[in-house]
Every structure is written in C-alpha cells, then in structure tokens.
C-alpha cells in the first residue's frame, strides 16, 4: 500500500474535493493506495509516497516529497488517473 497526501493551503474546500475524486479513481481502478487529506503542514508529519495538489502550489512542495502530482482541473478524473499512473510507473521503474 502506498500513502498519498491530498493537500491544499487550508486543507478545506479544494483539497477535500480533490480527495473525493482521488478516492473515486483509486476505487474504480483498484490501485494499492490509501489517500489522506489535510493542509500543506501535514507534509512534514509523516513520510508520504506521493502528494496530490493543485498545480499552482507544487513549486512550494515538490522538493519535500518523493513524488508530486500536480492537478489543474480538480474534477477531472482522467487527469487524476494519468497522474497516479505516472506515480505507479515511477515506482515500478525504481
């Protein structure tokens, strides 16, 4: 199982919906991932396999986590799916 953090600045509105969509994508595709949802402060609290966040904040966080998925349209499941597949590929090649 991989640990994922879904985060935004306050950890309220946008990351909450992103988390709901990420969970839907995980469930539909049976990915071995558990996603948690919080604000950006949670990055330091635990070792995450990857983080999912809105693309405008990835510059601030990408150095702190092994892998970062940047989302532009948070309701776009195809985009989320592509991002997660990118992560799984990255892990398999390691």
């Amino acid at each position, binding site marked *: 199982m991989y640990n994922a953090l879904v985060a*935004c*600045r*306050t*950890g*309220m*509105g*946008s990351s*909450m*919906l992103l*988390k*709901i969509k990420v969970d839907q994508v995980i469930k539909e595709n049976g990915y071995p991932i558990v996603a948690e*949802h*919080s*604000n*950006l*402060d949670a990055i330091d609290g635990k070792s995450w396999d990857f983080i999912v966040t*809105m*693309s*405008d*904040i990835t510059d*601030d966080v990408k150095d702190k986590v092994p892998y970062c998925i*940047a*989302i*532009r*349209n*948070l*309701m*776009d499941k195809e985009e989320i799916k592509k991002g997660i597949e990118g992560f799984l590929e990255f892990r398999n090649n390691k």
Partner: protein
Amino acid sequence: MKVIISLLSNAGILVGLISMLGLILQKKSADDVIKGTAKTIIGFLIFNIGSAAIGVTLTNFNTMFQKGFGITGVVTQVEAATALAQGKFGTIVAIVMVIGFAMNLFFARFTPFKNIFLTGQHSLYFACVLTLVLKACNVNNTVTIIVGGTLLGFSAAALPGLCQRYMRKITGNDSLALGHYNHLAYAFSGFLGSKVGNPEHSTENFKFPKWLSIFRDFTMCVAVVMVIVFYVAAFAAGKTVVDGLAKGVDWLVFPLLQGLQFAAAMYVLITGVRMFISEITAAFVAISEKYIPNSRPAVDCPSVFPFAPTAVILGFISAYAAGLVSMGVMIAMKSPIVMIPSASIAFFSGGTAGVFGNSTGGWKGCIAGSFVAGVLLVSLPLMLYPVFAHLGIVGASFPNVDYNIIGTLLYKITQFIQSVIH
C-alpha cells in the same frame, strides 16, 4: 423523550447523524459508518473549541482598540465571525446548513439552476449570516430554518451561474463552476476587465519575487496580520489597559502572544471544520452525481488558481491595498466602526477576483477587478455589522460580498413584511 431532545439539540450530534445518513446512503461498511460519524461529531466539537478560543482573544482586542481609539475596530475575518455566532445559535445554524444542502439538490433537480455547491465551509458561514439576519428580526426558529435553508439552497444552485461565462474562459471548458460566495464581485471583476484591459496582456507573462508566496500559507497570513493589528491596538490603549488584560505578562509581549493565539485558534477551528464537513461533502458529491446527472459542481476558489497563479498574487496585493485604503477612508470620515482588512480573505477572494479580471482584461483587468473586490470586502460589512452587534456578535464581521448583499436584502425584506403584518 428528554434524552432524545437533549441529544438532538446538540449541533454536533445533529451533523453527526446527517453524515451517518450520508454514509449509509452510500452503502459504506459498518466500520466506515461508525468512524465517519464519530469523526464528524469530534470535528464539530473541535470547531467549537476553536470558536471559543477566538472569542477570548477577540474580546481582548476589542477592549484595547476601544479604549485606545474610542471607536470599534472590527476584524473582517469570516471564521472569527462564525465562531461568535456559533456560541449563540449553533444548533439553528447547523440545521439551516443541512436544509440548505437538501434544497440545493432540490433546486438543481427541478429548476434550470444546475449548480451543486460543494464548498462546505461557505455553506456553514452563509448559514450563519442568514440565521443571524432572521434572528435579528426576531423571527422564530421554525421560520428561520425554512426561510434560511431555502435561501441558502437557492443561492447555492443559482449564484455560481453568474460567474459561468468567465469560468469557461478561465478553465477552457464548461465542466466546473465556482462555489465561493463572492460571485457578484467575481462576475463584476470579469466584466470590468473587459472594459479596462486586453486579455492578451496576461499577468502570466510576469514573475513575482519568491518571498511573496509566504502569503499562500493561511496560518502564516493570519498570524502576521493579527500580530501587527494587536500591537497597533496595544500601543493605542497604553500600558495600563494592556496590563489589566495581560494578567502578569509584560505589556510588550502580550500583543505578540495574542496575535499568535488568534492564529492558533483559527488553526484549531479550521481543523474542526475540515473534519466535520468532509464526510458530509463526500455524501453530497455521491448523491448529486447519482441522482442529478446533469448538474455542475461548484467548487472552492483555489480551483481556479492553477490557471493564472500570478494573477492570484497580483490580485491579493491589489485587494489588500484596496482594503487598507477603505479603512483609511473610514477613519478619515470618522466612522464609529472601522473595518480592518484581513490578509487571508484578500488572498483567496482578492486572488480569485484577480484571476477573473485577468481572463478578460489582462493585468489591468486583474488589478482593477481585485481592487473593487477589496473595497467591497471591507466596506460592505458596515451594512450588517450594527444588526449583528445587536445580537452580541461584536469585533468580527463577515466580509464576503454575497453574504452582505443577500443578507441586507433579506433584512430589509423581512422588516418590510413584518411592518405590513403588524
């Protein structure tokens, strides 16, 4: 019977039951239902703890500001105002919010207003405003719940539509709506942009210095501004007044600790809100996707930030400058109430107005649109502040544009109806 009434009149238990219902409707497993319900209730209790803590620091601030300047200084921070309302009308606010969700589904299903409003914390804040307005008119609980819930549901389904033509421009498709209750300001910013500028001259051609990104951190933003604001109030009030509040803490250290305490309380409050709305929002998404297939999700404002991140920073600066100018005007005009601009609201709401202005008018549209939004965020709360102060909600106000415009209309109409009836 007494046990049941006592249980259900607790707002935390009530939202817990709603989330339990949502989890069962989604056919979740028993342990998920128990966990989700418990987390919702605990989240609500954390929210209450944060609310109480904010109330304490705000009281200290009010005392210093009042004694120092002889006028009332009001923090335009929606979380703080909600915290104060929560202490007085918590259960009614929770019921209005829940009825609002149900009415949103109803309007989206049966009327041409197809937006499903998914920004849970805004539903809570707006429920607060509507409840306070109706309570200020001495409307009884049942009518407050029906009128407040219906108006909330209608606003949720209809208001995002005002921004949709600009959302299409910003995101490049029609699948996403904006769910952030400054729709009137954002739509105006988009309109103004088309008059003053050219979308070709986009803000995204510029780069901003890196340190400005500290304002992206919500807690940081609140802490910096509140420490400054507390020091201003403390110096105005003088050593004697501050010593009276500080209980042994040096008067020059007290404002620092209080400003940070305010940010800490806000952090607790937001953590609670996040916990208690997450299961309810998840259920709301599941229900709307299943039963209202042609609906459009209206989502929180950071969803547009990736499309123009520089416009967000420029919009923030412009909106905050506008807020400071507006505060200066209030002081110059000797207003008995002075609204203090909040940096976090200027970031999220001003930034969003900037993205809208930029989409139609480039950098000029961004600056103009977010400046207007900044003025509205600080000056509109003057309309409802006296009404809420009458209920004991003092020292903090609800800055969002839609809350104030719709809240004021509701207040005037309710008063008119009451004058006809009596």
